[in-house]
């Protein structure tokens, strides 16, 4: 029953994507990493119409991300809270068995310490999800940003 299998997969992937967003919104980086595979790859990618090139604005493996998260308290960070609304658009098989390719759209809002909310960025997540692990985990994420002007930049993944 192939349909049912696909169905189960689709349904299983969605809460993972949901949980990842909630964890980042809460600044709960341990929870985020607990949902990530090892090895893991994270990138923020942006198309530059000025250079006609795909740029990489952030790239980290699991170790790099872990270090980043550890160093955050020492950094001067943009205050406030992020809110990522992520909608899974498609779930597809990948070239590798047990791995799915998940494409989601997201909208990120920023709420200042004064409680005012503004659109920060929109884009897509291109995710590779590992279905073979005990718990389903994220193996790789490419954040494809539409938005290129973020005003003040960020120390945390989008």
């Amino acid at each position, binding site marked *: 029953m192939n349909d049912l299998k696909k169905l189960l997969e689709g349904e299983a992937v969605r809460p993972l994507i949901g949980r990842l967003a909630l964890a980042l919104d809460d600044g709960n980086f341990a929870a985020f990493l607990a949902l990530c595979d090892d090895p893991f790859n994270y990138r923020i990618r942006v198309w530059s119409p*000025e250079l006609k090139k795909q*740029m990489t604005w952030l*790239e980290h493996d699991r170790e790099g991300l872990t270090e980043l998260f550890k*160093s955050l308290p020492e950094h*001067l960070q943009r205050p406030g809270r992020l809110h990522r609304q992520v909608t899974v658009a498609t779930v597809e098989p990948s070239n590798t068995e047990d791995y799915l390719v998940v494409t989601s759209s997201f909208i990120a809002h920023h709420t200042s310490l004064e409680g005012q909310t503004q659109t920060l960025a929109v884009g897509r997540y291109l995710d590779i999800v590992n279905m073979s692990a005990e718990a389903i985990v994220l193996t790789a994420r490419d954040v494809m940003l539409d938005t290129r002007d973020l005003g*003040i930049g*960020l120390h945390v993944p989008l």
Partner: protein
Amino acid sequence: MPSRSSDAWNTPPALPDGSVVSGDVYTDTGVYADEVRSIYGQTWRFACHESEVPEPFDYRLIDHCGQSLIVIRGDDGQVRTFFNVCSHRGAKLLSEPAGNASAITCFYHRWTYDSRGACTGIPRPAGYPKEAVSKQSMGLREVRTDVLHGLVFICLADDGPALTDFIGSALDQFQDMLTGVPLEVFHFNRAVLACNWKAWHETNMDLYHEFMHVVLRKTQVNAMPMEDRKLITFANGHGGSGGDLKAKYDGYQGFSGRGADVPALPGVGPADFRFMNLFPSTAIISRGTVIRIDTATPLGPNQTLLEMRGLGIKGEPEEHRRIRQRHHNQYWGPFGRNVPEDMIAAESCADSFRSEAGRYQIIARDENLTGQDDAILRGFYQEWSKRTGRDPRNPTGHPQGRPVGQ
């Protein structure tokens, strides 16, 4: 009394001329108008890197104080700049920020122009008075353009000093790096900040704020004795490093090994930090393996467009490029460790001066052009004062009492 009353707060600190700057330089609309006219209308300003327009007809749009400019390489190979404005009724000629335009056709009524700014076509021209509206008379507005070490500069004024006169020897220390290998821009980003253009540029000129960046506290502050650092200022408001500062990358988790993994740029070692701030608002910075060029243009007294570039070696292996990109991003990417911090700082100060809670900036550090001397900032404001004809300590000539009854 350790805290200060309104009176004390509003009295400029008893410092020599040039060591104190009033918040009005960031907020007053008259000051701003003067800056746009006498600085951005008169000085040379970095536009883009030559590699961004490598071939004939390649162009790149530039934003200069809200004005859209076309930097284009002509059929003859020469780089020129034009207002991105049609001579007929003012429509913008090009909208894509970069491309190749062997002919420029205005979308509105289809007048056409060539890569040297000549008007080449007017549909149904018989409708016009012959001489006043003709291909001969309707060329584009050309902006003086020159190239130094691969850097394209523009100057809105028809006349005035040549680019090399304006720059003097300020870029000598970058010559090897900029010309020793073919360079290429691999990173570009724009950001509009809610601050005055000078508040941003100050983050580039100010050595003392190393203490803000955890990365610099751990890798730079103690990398060499403060008194061995060399700073230098030049005529026309430029200033930067007079010898390489050093970094100890091992001090920061995740930075160690930086520089062992990819060749450094010509003339520097992987841990060398070199920078030059060109008046009015361009910074060229290198950290061993990678170059950053950032340039700010004002959009309003409290609104600044920041354009940031990262440069690597043209044609280098993909793996090298990826590492160089990482090196760039570590400090300078929009998700990097340092640049968001600088942006926060610039906007934070801007907020204080805009509300007139902040009144003065102190730029009085004097370390004999070593350590964290404020000399580059003072040099900048000296030139600023010469051009605007205003005193940084009291640019509006107002009496010292403040609106909010302080």
